[in-house]
């Protein structure tokens, strides 16, 4: 059981990272002169890890995935930094959206397990933090806070659509 979960997680990570590098990175577009819209779907690889996975391990996996994306996006440290932060606050977000009867040891965050409302709020919190951090680190100065916020909001919308699309296309059990 747990072995198959591990295999599925590894496969999902591989699939999402490759999809991000090959497909979604090249889908990025611009609105006007200032607004960069990025499709950021790789956080799903972290967000779909089991609820009770040790936090340190989650953070470490986030760092590795972020670095891989960075190497292909030629922005060393930007994706990694934002994804590590997201991996860190994932536990906090579990506490915020905790269902009435709590979590079980084998729970995996998915629509099937917790319902659509829970899943959308859980994904939104983490994804928003990740994308906001990503653009902050990319622009690197809060003088352009308006640009950062506009980029974050537009990218957040397209990214969360993409993520739900992927979720509905590949209905994983775990």
């Amino acid at each position: 059981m747990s072995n198959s979960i591990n295999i599925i997680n590894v496969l999902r990570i591989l699939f999402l990272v490759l999809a991000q590098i090959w497909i979604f990175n090249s889908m990025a577009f611009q609105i006007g002169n200032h607004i960069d819209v990025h499709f950021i779907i790789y956080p799903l690889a972290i967000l779909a890890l089991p609820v009770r996975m040790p936090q340190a391990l989650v953070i470490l996996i986030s760092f590795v995935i972020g670095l891989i994306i960075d190497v292909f996006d030629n922005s060393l440290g930007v994706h990694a930094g934002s994804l590590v932060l997201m991996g860190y606050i994932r536990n906090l977000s579990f506490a915020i959206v905790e269902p009435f009867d709590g979590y079980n040891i084998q729970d995996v965050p998915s629509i099937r397990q917790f319902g659509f409302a829970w899943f959308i709020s859980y994904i939104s919190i983490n994804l928003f933090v990740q994308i906001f951090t990503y653009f902050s680190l990319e622009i690197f100065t809060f003088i352009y806070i308006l640009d950062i916020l506009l980029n974050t909001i537009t990218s957040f919308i397209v990214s969360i659509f993409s993520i739900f699309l992927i979720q509905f296309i590949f209905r994983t059990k775990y």
Partner: protein
Amino acid sequence: MYNAFQLIAKYGAHILFIVLEIICFNLIINYNSAQKKIYLNSSNVYASKIQNVRSRIDGYLSLKEVNDSLMRQNANLIENLIVIEYATKSIPNADSLDVAYDILPASICRNDIFNRNNYITLCSGRRHGIDQNMGVIESSIGIVGIVKNVTENFAQVMSILNSQTKISCSIKNKNSFGTLVWKDMDQQYMTLQDIPKHHKVSIGDTVITSGYSTVFPRGILVGKIEKYDIEIGSNSYTMKVRLFNDLSKLNYAYVIKNRFSNEQLSLESQEDRE
């Protein structure tokens, strides 16, 4: 050691998070040219701001040393002034440029101004070369008093705001001289008396020390005449002199050491005995 392991087990994720974020930050500023530029610029801005604050604090902390060195420079300048005064005002002789006066800087420990007899305590004493009956001035403008008692590290100065004060003063560019005393309890004014009434004086004349004692050299500015009259039956003026210096704001003073005062005094006392 066990505690350390426990700490890591408990806070491992947090420590790992911080370490990884620091690594990411380093990667960002080392491998991304745009972010690197921004980082270097803003860190320069902050570094220079911090440097500014630091230098201001340093400046404040070294104020005392700066002040001391300025005091020494001032002492030298006043010495030179007195030398010049002597060179121009008296008959030049072979050693007219010999410095008869030594100026010693001193800071004020205690200062009274509200009593009938006010005294000032200096923070330096015999160890620094101060002795009895030396004059104390604020600068080349304004006198302070006369040293009365000295210990190793302190000196008690009889302020000019003292009923016992009698300082020989004259009016600038005139050779008449009189005695400066403190009569009414006003810290701004003193009284100059005993100037014979056949001399011409006018309001606004500058009062200077006469140099006819061993205490003060000639030419230290004291104050300005604000009012004068002749008391009925008297042969001399009574003048109200507004002091140039404000003794209530006194922080530092210079003690005048006359190198030849002992010689002069012993000669004068011989005269008395005969």
